[in-house]
């Protein structure tokens, strides 16, 4: 294989692996939007909150990685409940813009709490997957990227099982489609909302662990980066569409790695946002979306 094709394929693999992290972020945004019809702008901060919580046992007891993953999930779920309680529970119905601002307020509060707790310096994170690249045929694969791919496959299998094969999932889909009708049939909206929050927050915990592992250090600014990626992927795929989010995440990942390799870092984000703009102009409801808001 000529060199350029080899490079392109290697970046394709990297992009698919890293893109599955973007897919997870988009998945968290989109599930919540699908069920509650509201955008949670504090989601990126929830992810970082989970990662920071997992630093506590890491620094105190040098716990193994799987304990950190679990504590990241626990931390994110706790913060997620707080977000639901403060930003959504008592909000009056029928005001589209209000939840955007309450979650912005929460984003500010969570970020500030993190800055206060850590003094705004990057904190070294665990490197459970080692530093050595794995050789796979002619390609070098980063082990943490591979771990992200495995985690994403596991998470999405679990989520699809939950949504399509369980009573809870059926209730969630019913609420997503027709909240009033679902309520008449005995589905408790509040219970579904809280459980959806629990699900997406647990996902945030997983994302927090793997995102910070791949970056190497926990920094407060990562919340903005995660929020940006999440919004782009969610909208690229179509709000409320899980398949769209997966597709959008992988596409963004591949595009980023290819442009970074062939054109350099400075073009990476420009192309990503131009792609977003172009896709929305051609398909105003996202890649997989048919219904508009």
């Amino acid at each position, binding site marked *: 294989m000529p060199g350029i094709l080899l490079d392109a394929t290697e970046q394709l693999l990297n992009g698919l692996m890293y893109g599955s992290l973007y897919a997870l972020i988009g998945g968290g945004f989109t599930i919540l939007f699908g069920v509650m019809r509201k955008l949670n702008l504090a989601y990126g901060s929830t992810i970082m909150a989970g990662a920071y919580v997992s630093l506590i046992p890491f620094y105190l007891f040098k716990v193994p990685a799987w304990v950190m993953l679990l504590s990241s999930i626990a931390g994110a779920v706790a913060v997620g409940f707080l977000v639901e309680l403060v930003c959504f529970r008592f909000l009056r119905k029928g005001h589209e813009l209000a939840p955007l601002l309450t979650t912005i307020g*929460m984003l500010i509060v969570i970020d500030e709490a993190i800055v206060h707790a850590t003094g705004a310096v990057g904190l070294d994170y665990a490197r459970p997957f080692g530093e050595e690249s794995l050789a796979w045929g002619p390609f070098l694969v980063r082990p943490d990227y591979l771990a992200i791919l495995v985690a994403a496959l596991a998470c999405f299998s679990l989520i699809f099982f939950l949504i399509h094969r369980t009573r809870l999932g059926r209730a969630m889909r019913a609420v997503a489609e027709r909240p009033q009708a679902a309520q008449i049939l005995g589905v408790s909206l509040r219970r579904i909302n809280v459980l959806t929050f629990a699900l997406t927050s647990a996902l945030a915990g997983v994302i927090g662990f793997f995102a910070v592992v791949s970056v190497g250090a926990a920094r407060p600014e990562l919340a903005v980066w995660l929020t940006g990626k999440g919004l782009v992927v969610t909208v690229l795929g179509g709000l409320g569409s899980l398949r769209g989010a997966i597709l959008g995440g992988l596409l963004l990942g591949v595009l980023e790695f290819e442009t970074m390799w062939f054109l350099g870092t400075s073009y990476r984000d420009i192309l990503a946002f131009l792609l977003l703009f172009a896709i929305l102009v051609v398909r105003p409801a996202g890649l997989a979306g048919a219904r508009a808001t």
Partner: protein
Amino acid sequence: MDYYVAIASIIGIHALLGLSVYLVAISGQMSFGQQGFFAIGAYLAGMGTALWGLPLLPSLVLGALFAGLIGIVVGFPALRVRGLYLAIATYGFGEVVRLVFLNIRYTKTIGDRVVGPNGAEGFRHVRYVFDRGFTGLQFLGIIAAVVAGVAVLFYLLDRSKLGATLRAVEEDEVAAATVGIDVTRVKVLAFGAAGAVAGLGGGLFIHFSSYIDHDMVALPLAIASITYPILGGLGSFVGPILGAVLLVSLTEGLRVLHELRMFVYGGLIIVTMLVRPRGLVDEALVLRVKRWVRPRPMPRGADVP
């Protein structure tokens, strides 16, 4: 004293950003990319005075016009998209603008200074205001005059046919189209005008601070600019101005609290939305004030209940 003048100047500049988002919002759209127009206005107006030797006013107009033009060009494709999709699409536009300015280099060496957009270094030494010996207070006067002028335009818009047309498009596009309103044209026009207002704010900003870089027009500015109108209320143009006054003076005023400042700030945004989900100056309040200011005379012959 200088400190308060600086805060008042920032309030004026941010009020223009808020008004820009408001103008898009009253035609039923949500933009999360007005910081892009702010950046365009800032860079162009800065180039006007610092590189091309133009006076302040033409430079500001140039920046605003160019931002407005870009608004119209972007508006045509962008306005196919609605609601949150549009908000994110415009955010994408804002980020593209930011990243272009992160990469663009167009500098001249004037004296011993390198002036002009200089990539990640930003655009430094826009010293027109300082070189001409304006005091902070005088420049605040210029900012206040511009904001007042724009506010008057909004006031006139509110009571003009065009204003009613915008509100009609916001309420119901289909109904508006049925009564003969060219919905696309109205939306693109509003988007272009909003771009110009944000560009004007940017032009004032770079002359106020003498400096801008790509980091200053990133996500936090986008968040701030939608916070002003939503918190202040979309019932009247007073809303976004009030939002800017409150939030900017809060961030500065709360400095006495040091540590707790941002907690109070974020908390206040949440509480305000829980209590007044349509903002402080909502439609109901506007109606009440209007009735109070000008009680409508009863139509002749009407039964008084």
